């Protein structure tokens, strides 16, 4: 039997402030985007189910945080993103894209409006250096300071239907009153944290920004409160069921982002790469359901005997009990119902399934 080897961590792998806490919790660590990260603790399925039915927490401290401050911050962000940053108000956040000058996406990100002339950008871990270089290139002529605070923050995603009920006793803020995409300062277990009612699992929950030095104590408090640690394995199956694209799979420097059904992220405004974004995509991102055999990224997708696309993400769905996949297919086949996916040289029938595969209560 061979699988992705549990190779000893390379000395160059970076560690989040919670690395020791993961080892204490019995995590199996794997290299991910240059970081030594927990892929699972008790087991992927148990962690997945904890988030769907109760509450789980993920260490996402490897993600990057950039702060844009100054009178020119809004104009700068408007020019390098597709969503309308002028619609944000202090204490609100939204999903946004950094389009490439030559098409595709540099990254997909979240922007939090902290105060007038102050915004926090949360970017994908594997793209921190690329995003930073890209943004630096376009700073000229704008009156703002952009700072990379990625090492100062730990970020915990607490997700699941029982998140509110489990966190509320430990905060002075009325958490239920905070709407989706709210971003606010709060006390949690006595720590000063920033909370955002956001997530990447298809469930209710909060993302907790906490100073790196306080992260481990906060993690222990959350464990005591009954929140199960969950690893990158469950994070991926949860986001796939919820139909969320993942950079490097459904988005990239070359994939047209409007292949996905996220057209609402592109607003009517001037920005970098506008001409590429407004061109019609040649492919569409669809959902597929298989009877039994799991399909994985890179497997070819056929329709009427001809290859029409490729699987971008695939897994067995712990919630639905059958394999699911997202695939990029030729736009002409976006409405087709029947496909085949080639697995180790043999083609297996796949049926189109509307995204998201799973919608939370």
């Amino acid at each position, binding site marked *: *039997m061979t699988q992705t080897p549990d190779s000893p961590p390379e000395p160059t792998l970076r560690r989040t402030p919670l690395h020791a806490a993961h080892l204490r919790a019995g995590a199996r660590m794997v290299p991910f985007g240059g970081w030594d990260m927990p892929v699972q603790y008790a087991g*992927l*399925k148990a962690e997945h189910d904890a988030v769907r039915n109760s509450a789980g927490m993920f260490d996402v401290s490897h993600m990057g945080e950039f702060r844009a401050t100054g009178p020119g911050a809004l104009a700068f962000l408007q020019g390098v993103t597709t969503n309308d940053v002028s619609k944000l108000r202090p204490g609100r956040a939204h999903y946004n894209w950094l389009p490439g000058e030559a098409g595709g996406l540099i990254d997909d990100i979240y922007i939090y409006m902290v105060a007038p002339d102050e915004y926090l950008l949360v970017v994908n871990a594997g793209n921190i250096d690329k995003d930073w270089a890209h943004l630096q290139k376009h700073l000229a002529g704008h009156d703002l300071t952009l700072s990379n605070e990625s090492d100062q923050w730990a970020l915990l995603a607490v997700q699941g239907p029982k998140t509110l009920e489990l966190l509320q006793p430990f905060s002075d803020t009325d958490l239920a009153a905070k709407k989706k995409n709210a971003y606010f300062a709060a006390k949690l277990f006595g720590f000063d944290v920033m909370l955002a009612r956001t997530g990447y699992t298809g469930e209710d929950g909060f993302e907790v920004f906490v100073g790196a030095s306080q992260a481990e104590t906060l993690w222990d408090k959350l464990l005591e409160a009954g929140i199960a640690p969950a690893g990158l*394995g469950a994070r991926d199956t949860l986001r796939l069921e919820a139909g969320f694209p993942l950079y490097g799979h459904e988005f990239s420097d070359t994939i047209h982002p409007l292949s996905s059904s996220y057209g609402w992220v592109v607003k009517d405004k001037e920005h970098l790469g506008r001409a590429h974004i407004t061109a019609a995509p040649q492919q569409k991102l669809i959902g597929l359901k298989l009877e039994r*055999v*799991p399909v994985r990224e890179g497997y070819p997708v056929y329709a009427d005997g001809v290859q029409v696309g490729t699987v971008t993400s695939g897994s*067995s769905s*712990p919630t639905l009990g059958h*394999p699911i996949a997202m695939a990029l297919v030729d736009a002409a086949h976006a409405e087709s119902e029947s496909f085949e996916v080639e697995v*180790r040289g043999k083609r297996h029938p796949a049926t189109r399934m509307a995204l998201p595969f799973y919608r939370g209560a």
Partner: protein
Amino acid sequence: MNTPSELKYAASHEWLSPDGTVGISDFAQDQLGDVVYVELPEVGREVTAGDTIAVVESVKTASDIYAPASGTITAVNEELSGSPEKVNESPYENGWLFKMDVTEVGADLMDAEQYAETAE
């Protein structure tokens, strides 16, 4: 970790019983996590030790299974197509993968004690 002493083990975590039954070790099933799909060889196929002859898939990954001996496949565990979780629940009994008519055992199979040391 459970490693029955009557079995021989491959470094790639398959076990082989004296009657030619093959499965994956307790260590292997634990490393894999929840098994959701098993692809087994055709009965009658002739294999050489080290050939890739089956695939065990967990939620996240597909893992190749290698023949621990040369010979002919005589039976496969049909139960696994409906209940792949038996590989996790009972790796040495109900979760067996296939049976072989062994002509030659793989050269580098280990006994339980040696295997337990390598798989820690």
